[in-house]
């Protein structure tokens, strides 16, 4: 299911504005900085457009949007540009979100360490018991291990997905999939719009 036209347009308009702001920022930026500025502006545009669309049938804006903006806001050098794009108050919110995200990440890390240590403690005892049982159960053992292997695979991939989707570390299961869905749609739109812009500015070269 592709993005509705309204979203595309809102995104594009926002993109134009942010690119404009970025262009105003400095005419003498290096290539890499320019590229970062473009990426930043397009990401912010994406987040803003998606937030606006989420307002229409009133739902909460997607988690990845905040995380994305927060991620950009966290870098100090982006501050001026972001301020210009998003207006001062918006930037404050983004900075606050960034701080909150940082704290959340630390919390999650702590929790994970605790969980892992607990598992190690109990796993050592349980595994011995389970191992002996599995050995005795002839055919069932193979099946169980296959399922366990599949589950492990899925878990590993979910972990990778979590690292990919912005703001995904805190999500689990169902919400992760929803966020991925939204994020994929928006990424697709972003790519299309950027392509449009590229095509548009190409004749300039001649």
């Amino acid at each position, binding site marked *: 299911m592709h993005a509705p036209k309204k979203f595309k347009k809102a995104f594009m308009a926002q993109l134009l504005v942010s690119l404009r702001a970025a262009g105003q920022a400095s005419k003498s930026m290096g290539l890499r900085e320019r590229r970062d500025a473009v990426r930043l502006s397009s990401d912010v545009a994406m987040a803003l457009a998606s937030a606006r669309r989420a307002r229409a049938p009133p739902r909460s804006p997607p988690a990845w949007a905040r995380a994305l903006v927060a991620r950009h806001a966290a870098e100090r050098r982006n501050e001026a540009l972001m301020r210009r794009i998003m207006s001062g108050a918006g930037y404050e919110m983004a900075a606050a979100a960034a701080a909150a995200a940082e704290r959340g990440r630390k919390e999650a890390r702590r929790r994970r360490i605790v969980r892992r240590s607990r598992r190690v403690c109990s796993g050592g005892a349980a595994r011995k018991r389970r191992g002996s049982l599995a050995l005795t159960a002839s055919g069932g053992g193979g099946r169980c291990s296959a399922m366990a292997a599949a589950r492990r695979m899925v878990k590993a991939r979910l972990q990778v997905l979590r690292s990919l989707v912005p703001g995904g570390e805190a999500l689990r299961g169902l919400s992760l999939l929803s966020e991925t869905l939204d994020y994929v749609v928006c990424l697709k739109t972003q790519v299309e719009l950027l392509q449009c812009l590229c095509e548009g500015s190409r004749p*300039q070269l001649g």
Partner: protein
Amino acid sequence: MEGRAAGGDYIASLLSSAPRLDLGVLGMLDGAAAGADGGDDCLERFCGDPGFAERAARLSSFSGQRFAGAGAGAAGLFGLPAPAPPAASNGEFAGSREASSVSDPASAMRDANAKKRKAPAAAKGKGKESSSQAGEQKDPDTKRCKTTEGGEGKKEEGSVKPKSEQAGSDSSVEDGGQKPPGKGKNAKPVEPPKDYVHVRARRGQATDSHSLAERVRRERISQRMKVLQDLVPGCNKVIGKALMLDEIINYVQSLQRQVEFLSMKLATVNPLDFSNLPTLLQKDMFQACGPSASSVFSLESSSSGFPFSDQGDVFQSFVSNALENQCSLNPLDLALSQATNAQYAFQDGTAGTNLQQRNFWEEDLQNVFHIDNGQQSQENGVSAQSFHGQLQAGHMKMEF
């Protein structure tokens, strides 16, 4: 997260078990919960009941996180702090209660059920809503909680409670003509829409709340996966969670890489001079963005009026306007300035970040315009009049 869906059904079970102990309290419960939205005379009544208080505490604490908004309010209503009994006790509690609840006279149970459904409905509906998703497009409306409509009489027949299915008598009474084919998929009821999801147990499957909740969750997950499958090209051939996730990951990575590459390209091609962008867009948007975009634009060109009544539409209108016009001047800027004029009229009516952003853009763009062209005032004067209908762009040729 696993507790989330399970929590809902636990609450349903807890509340359904309530009549076993105290029907009077139950009536109050429903009254109070319904009065959670207003009216608090019931509050004192059941605050006085210790057994109920304990149940309520367990309820609120068990699904503590889910009920962040609604439940905290509800728990607060009950006037109790939230202790933390272990979940196991809840399970047993529910289990013992349900067995006893079965033997209740069917009518009393039905009445109680009917009333109670309103109670958890409000709280659970909110909880489920907030937890379900953020902005997913393909809305699983069939599974989503619907609000209760009228039809009191139908409630007993149509609704399904996970626990009540255990009792043959109850189900036969309640389900009426509703029984779907035994092994079919879980039928979400089309009958009186409630605020939470009804799950019908399949034949030969465990009907305790654990597995039912898990099944609901699994169905939701599979539904999302299906949507993702349609979205990600090349996922159709693959079956199985792990492989599909693989594909999805690859796709996301490739999209991200594409974004980087394109932004790099944009940065090289266009040294970010803003004045060029709109004209370029105007010329090339038609070809580059494909037939879908152009169809929409043509549609909008046919509409002669600017729907300035809505901020969102302002956006659309000026973007589309920019793309329709084939005049030599920079129509996007013109349209934008026009939009800014229009916006000033609407400033008072709107609020929120939307307005903030727009105001910000306005002043930014105004700066741009002021710097670049000196005929701003004239253009504004004309454009203020030409609100409706096409732009009088042809009359004004402004050069940057």
